């Protein structure tokens, strides 16, 4: 079967503005004084791998190792400086708390807005709407403006939308702690169910237990370099070893 995600020699270079010009005056002054300096920073260097449909790939590494950048390159938010990444399917990034929501609108309107942002059409969302509301357990509040929700309620709604629209690829960046303990269990079950149902998942987490528990393969990144890629357990062991040696 053809891989669902192909990442080939991806390098991501950030062109950091060393002189920190954020307004026009500073920029013009710096430009005239020829002091516009840039520092190059490589967030990813020459990353290549493929993901087969149905795989659950865990991405591990220290803070600032490029995990989130890699997810953003794959989901198309960042454009790689060189190399290419191809995706054969619909990606649903699980949005961080409320980033796709409008707090003035009701929960119901937000379901459709968020669904549209994830690229789904009206007909599909209408058919999924009841299921999403039921899963989030927000039936009573769904017609209220989102600004009246607690943060747990908002997260529950976000999780329900992202997972119930049945994306081909789900991107999870460190948010498996949704809602109270009961809903956390429920959401973990839902994730498992999706993985078993053939959804490809890319997951970033600092909890190695979670990675060991859920993933079929793991990718270890360190300062933008690929340190290891392979079966979950050995890669996690290697990483733990490395971290322990470092102190």
């Amino acid at each position, binding site marked *: 079967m053809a891989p669902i995600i192909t990442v080939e020699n991806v390098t991501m270079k950030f062109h950091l503005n060393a002189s920190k010009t954020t307004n026009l005056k500073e920029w013009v002054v710096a430009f005239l004084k020829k002091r516009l300096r840039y520092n190059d920073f490589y967030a990813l260097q020459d990353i290549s791998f493929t993901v087969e449909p149905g795989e659950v790939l865990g991405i591990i590494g220290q803070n600032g190792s490029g995990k989130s950048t890699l997810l953003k390159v794959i989901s198309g938010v960042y454009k790689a400086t060189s190399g290419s990444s191809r995706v054969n399917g619909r990606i649903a*990034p699980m949005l961080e708390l409320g980033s796709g929501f409008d707090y*003035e609108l009701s929960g119901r309107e937000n379901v459709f807005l968020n669904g549209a*942002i994830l690229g*789904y059409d009206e007909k599909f969302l209408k058919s999924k709407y009841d299921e999403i509301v039921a899963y989030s357990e927000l039936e009573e509040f769904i017609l209220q403006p989102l600004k009246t929700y607690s943060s747990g309620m908002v997260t529950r709604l976000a999780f329900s939308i992202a997972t119930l629209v049945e994306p081909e690829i789900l991107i999870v960046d460190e948010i498996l702690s949704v809602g109270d303990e009961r809903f956390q269990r429920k959401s973990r079950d839902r994730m498992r169910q999706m993985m078993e149902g053939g959804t490809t998942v890319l997951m970033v987490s600092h909890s190695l237990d979670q990675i060991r528990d859920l993933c079929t393969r793991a990718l270890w990144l360190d300062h933008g370099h690929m340190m290891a890629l392979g079966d979950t357990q050995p890669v996690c062991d290697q990483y733990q070893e490395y971290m322990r040696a470092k102190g």
Partner: protein
Amino acid sequence: MDTNTKEQKKKRLRILALFTAIYFCAAGLLLWLVWDAWQRQAVTEGGVSRGFATEALQAGDVLTQSFQPVMDFVQEITLDVSHWPQDASAAVEVTLLRGCDTLCQRRLTAADYADGSLRCAIDPPTAARGGELAVAITGADLSLWGGDTIAAGRFDVADQQAGTLTLNGQTLSGRLVMTVRGYNQYHVLRYYWPVALALYAAGLIFLSIQLRRPRSLLVILSQTIKRYKYLLKQLVGRDFRVKYQASVLGVLWSFLNPMLMAFVYYFVFSTIFKSAIDHFIVYLMSGIILFNYFSESTSLSLISVVGNAPLITKVYIPKYIFPVTKALSSAINLAISFIPLFALMLFTGVPFHKSLLLIPLLLFFLVGFATGVGLILSAMYVFFRDVGFLWSVLISIWNFLTPIFYPVSIIPDKYMPFYQLNPMYQILSFARSIILNGVSPAPQAYLFCLLWSMGTLAIGLAVYYKSQDKFCLYL
């Protein structure tokens, strides 16, 4: 395979037929609407105010006024009469001359005289370019008005070129008070169908090539539209809902706002400018709603990318969708505010002409221009937040540089070439022509508007595409 290609062929033919039908309907409609205006442009010259009356002419006297009209053809000359002969059977002879050649000679009677002015139709219209013309008048017991100052307040009339007034060959000071009406001839319509057919052929060739390719521009475009249509609808709907959510009158504000603005301006400026402009309130209202659209959509586009930063850094969405959404949701507002405008026209007795059918074209120019500006601004704002402060100042300067509440005629002639560079001036003139005057604008107005709107849109798209990959790094 065979049936597939046959089906595809059928589909291709259907699209081409649809294109043909729409194209020719649009071209025909446009031709019908612009027919008169693209043939000739009416010109009126005059503007000398009454200063003195000439001595009554004796039989055999010839009063000659030379003049140099700036127009292609002269159709009518109106003279201001101070004293009309008492004799009911008296006749006045008016002759239009170029050098020694008589171009037109008319014998006018009391039937041509009304309310102090004598109308002399030049039939057939006489070519006016190529030398000074003179009008010679004979008639016993006739006295005409003359003057030597340009009238104030007659803004719609161009200043008359200098000329000399002679009586039986003797030069008098001053000149006759007269109005010359005529027109400039355009030759655009001659090229209308050839150009339209050439464009049609080009479009047809482009379409049929595009339809044959599997991953053509057209396919990608239609897929993109199909994919993001719903998102666009959601975002536009959100803007609209959020805007009116907490207000009691809700969408009624789209009616009320421009109305109230127009009334405020009306009370402030009516004494200064009212006399110079017919239907001043409609003039104001049309200016206000169009310029408001421009300032609202650009100001909202400006912050649209930065405002949606949390989204842009998390999900892949074509980023142009944010400024475009703002331009469209403001356009809905604009469309709504046409309703009170029409109501006001009905109320103040401005006739509805067929030229109002050109409003979609007007909106196309305006929305295109505003979208282009919005794209440029929103991209710049990501990198330099100063643009926000700068733009609020610029838009109020722009507001004063556009004839919203004053007549264009208060702008001195020497500044007009610069003043006309303002695209909003072009668009507002276009609008006033079709709404107030009921005539299609002159061909060059279409050209200016088209160039401004499509040029700005193209530049905006280019700037946006070039910079959008960097957005994420600055948000």
